[in-house]
């Protein structure tokens, strides 16, 4: 039986939230630094990248949010057999409320019917918590903060798409992704990172797309076809010239991560989850011994 101290775990979850909101992961920082070096001296793209990096340093040093839109808090939690989900949910809620009090998070949950902000970032479906059971003997909490600007340019296509000449194959998948990034321009706080879900139904397709965003930027897809598609899209999308904030430049997209699901014969969805440059994601592992580590 997996046992943990509730008060201690709540504080550890609060630390996970603090890191997610204030500390941009190293793989993302490295990618932005490379993009900065790739732009000519004196260009507005290079100056924007420089400002982004300064902001990242400041947020980390002062433990304040990188972006004021602390987003939908998306939790992917892996648990060993027998660990209760309701208690973990309650602890995540407690940590969330405390994170608002400490100004790590903005109160970001608005009642869709009344328009009233709940004030503590808790509401129906907020935060979003997805549990899966696994064979390991430890618990893993993965957390991503995904802001509204990039969520608003995220989209879902169904193939075929006549206007784009996109059929029900990988070439069709490629075309709709190019279209989505061109339509997004700088609105999702470019340069963005794309999580793609091919297949599934409308819900599972988007969930797959979002799950892909938990991968590290320099990794490679275990599936050769998808890996080749990721590389081709990354190169081609950066030809669009949208650049940081849509001001023009050589880096429009920092990474493309694709997953696929089986689909119904009648359905062929392509879901595109656009993540902003403030690609805030961290994870925490809780061992049965009580030992905790963060990534």
């Amino acid at each position, binding site marked *: 039986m997996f046992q943990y101290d509730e008060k201690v775990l709540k504080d550890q979850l609060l630390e996970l939230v603090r890191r997610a909101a204030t500390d941009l992961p190293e793989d993302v920082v490295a990618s932005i630094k490379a993009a900065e070096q790739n732009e000519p001296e004196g260009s507005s793209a290079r100056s924007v990248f420089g*400002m*982004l990096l300064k902001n990242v340093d400041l947020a980390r040093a002062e433990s*304040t949010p990188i972006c*004021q839109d602390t987003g939908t808090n998306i939790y992917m939690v892996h648990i060993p057999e027998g660990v209760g989900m309701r208690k973990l949910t309650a602890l995540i809620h407690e940590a969330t409320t405390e994170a608002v009090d400490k100004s790590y998070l903005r109160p970001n949950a608005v009642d869709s019917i009344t328009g009233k902000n709940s*004030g503590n970032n808790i509401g129906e479906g907020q935060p979003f918590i997805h549990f899966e059971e696994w064979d390991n003997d430890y618990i893993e909490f993965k957390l991503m903060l995904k802001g509204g600007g990039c969520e608003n340019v995220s989209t879902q296509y169904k193939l075929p798409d006549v206007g784009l*000449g996109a059929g029900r194959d990988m070439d069709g998948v490629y075309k709709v992704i190019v279209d989505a990034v061109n339509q997004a321009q*700088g609105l999702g706080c470019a340069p963005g990172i794309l999580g793609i879900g091919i297949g599934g139904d409308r819900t599972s397709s988007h969930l797959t797309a979002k799950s892909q965003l938990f991968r590290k930027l320099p990794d490679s897809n275990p599936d050769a076809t998808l890996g080749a598609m990721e590389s081709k899209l990354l190169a081609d999308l950066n030809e669009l010239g949208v*650049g940081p904030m849509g001001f023009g430049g050589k880096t429009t997209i920092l990474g493309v991560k694709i997953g696929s699901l089986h689909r119904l014969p009648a359905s062929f969805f392509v879901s595109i989850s656009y993540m*902003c440059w403030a690609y805030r994601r961290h994870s925490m592992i809780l061992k049965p011994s009580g030992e905790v580590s963060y990534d």
Partner: protein
Amino acid sequence: MIKLQLPISEAAIRGLKIGDEVQISGLMVTARDAAHKYIHENWPEWLEPIMEDSMIYHCGPVVKKHADGSWSFVAAGPTTSIREEPYEAAVMERYKVRAVIGKGGMGETTLAGLAKSGGVYLHAIGGLAASLAKCVVKVHDVYMLEELGVPEAFWHIEVQDFPAVVTMDSHGGSLHKTIKAQSDEVAKKLIFG
């Protein structure tokens, strides 16, 4: 780098063109989605002295309340502006607002409004929240906090050396249109060969 001090004249604003980098100092007000809807339905007179010859900042901040009741901004980058497209040209004309600050640019109605009433669109850097909060040197007041909530309330703030780029001007220029036209061409080639 062009320094802009608020309040600012229509003539000074009409002197700006797309691509100009500016630094703003003085008093401005935040207003985003719920605030714009509220203005459009009520056209309140109390906003007149706050907005005339000043700027609207599309921002929903993270704030901190101090023991003495005062507020400070902790994180305060721009939010996406295009959602205010149905309202902004009319709001700017009615209140003589000289600029809106946001991200992502706005559409044709706003662009025409900028030319008509004398205004510009200033693009701040999205996700620059920690740095831009440092530019907010004082929170003077907050309006409709209870009704609208923290992100959506009207925050009357004093900024110093707040950096932004003119991406839409009062002469019909829009950097967003230029970049979109270029990327449309590339996208067409990638999609249709």
